[in-house]
């Protein structure tokens, strides 16, 4: 019972945080609400006794990734979107109507669905016998899920290479950095050219 109440509380807070994220005009406020959402999701993981997952959720999403996000936003100095000219104003209403329609559809369909229990016979007691949730999680990650785990590391490699390709400045002979590739013409016309 307590768990159910807590689950409802955290879910409502998480959804509220999510709504706040997309409605704030101030980007940093939006991001903070997103962090708030992540923390509530972590709390729900705690409730389901997935402690490791909960902590990782905080460490990776609420911590590392969001700090970088906040950084970028601050450095870009995107204070608000208010000055931005709103385009496609009329589309907004159509989009809103469609979104509501999709939401209703999902709710109706998913309300009638019975989800299969995927616990595989794991209860808090058997988890303790197996050496705790963290150990169970690790066993799954490094046995059944080994290949996706390894492929994910390649995805990270690609992300790193990509970041370097896209932002690294090239050094000239004198050691100064320049924003242009050797010989690339910095005229606006050249930039607009077909590639």
């Amino acid at each position, binding site marked *: 019972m307590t768990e159910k109440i807590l689950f409802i509380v955290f879910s409502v807070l998480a959804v509220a945080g999510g709504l706040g994220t997309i409605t704030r005009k101030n980007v940093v406020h939006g991001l903070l609400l997103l962090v708030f959402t992540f923390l509530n999701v972590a709390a729900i993981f705690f409730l389901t006794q997935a402690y490791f997952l909960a902590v990782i959720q905080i460490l990776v999403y609420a911590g590392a990734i969001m700090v970088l996000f906040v950084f970028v936003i601050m450095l870009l100095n995107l204070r608000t979107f208010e000055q931005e000219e709103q385009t496609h104003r009329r589309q907004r209403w159509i989009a809103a109507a469609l979104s509501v329609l999709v939401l209703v559809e999902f709710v109706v369909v998913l309300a009638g669905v019975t989800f299969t229990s995927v616990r595989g016979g794991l209860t808090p007691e058997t988890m303790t016998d197996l050496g705790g949730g963290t*150990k169970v999680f690790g066993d799954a990650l490094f046995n059944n899920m080994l290949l996706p785990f390894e492929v994910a590391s390649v995805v990270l490699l690609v992300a790193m290479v990509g970041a370097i390709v896209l932002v690294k400045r090239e050094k000239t002979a004198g050691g100064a950095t320049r924003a242009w590739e050797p010989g690339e013409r910095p005229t606006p016309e050249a930039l607009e050219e077909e590639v």
Partner: protein
Amino acid sequence: MSDPIAQLIFLIVKAILLPVLIVLFVAFVIYFERKFAGFFQARVGPTYLGPWGSLQSFGDIFKLMSKEDVTPARADKPVFKLAPYIAFIPAFLVMAVLPFGPVGGEPNLFGYRFDYVIANFDAGLVLFLAMCALGVYGVVLAGWSSNSNYSLLGGLRAGAQMISYELAMGFSVVGVMLMAGSMSLVDIVDRQAGNFWDWYFIPQIVGAVIFFIASIAELNRTPFDLAEAEQELVAGHLTEYSGMRWGMFYFAEYVNLVVVSAIVSTLYLGGWRAPLEVLDFIPGPIWLFLKICVLIFLYMWIRWTIFRYRYNQLMSIGWKVLLPLSIANLAVTAVVVSLVG
């Protein structure tokens, strides 16, 4: 009284008592910092309030509370007001998983079992790292919301520094995880049972040193206190704060100092365990307290002895020295652990 109810009562007592004790302790840590600073600089430090000035911190708290709390007109007010709390809370959460005495076993208090930990949690070490990550927000948001250039620069410096050193910190911690075969701080202390040569600081000496250095950066203390470098940035992210809000940041810094010292002793110095088995008659919390005191002294010693690094030096130490070293340490530990068993 049945056992679950007793455990619940114990839990409430622990959850209230531990933060209170730490807050009290922090008041004296601040006093000692000032006293040591005086000592290192051939001054006397605080002397007026209480015997040898030992109640100075309490006076300061009253002073700060009675001061006007200024919020800059163009500041982002909600964030500006929230930031001190964000800096303050994560440090306390780590205490929940910190064992300060034996856990489990026979009934030891009024016929009930009293665990010297608030939550025996099998990912406690990761929780510590997560809370470090959250702690960055306090500083970064304080810097941003003040709407002042000094603050913003200070906040960004602190944020960049903390996420850089967090990596080295995380990697060096994994060595301990591998040796203990667990991420639970309780288990990690249990695996270090025995005499002081069984503690992890001997096999993990590289990791321990890296962790210690990185923790100085995490704590924003000299020689890595670039965020508050007063010659360049006034007071960094704290520039616009005053009164009790400033006090909360100041306080959070010292709570963090205590918590990090406790984590270092737990990971590398046997936690609450006595250095020699014959000394086991002295209770665990006292040993932990002594270790924390020694480490805090070490942090203060470093702070008042070594000069501040330049920002690029700081970054190259983090990325080019500590991070590769910690990865090498992890690799060697992993190989050795898998070979030895």
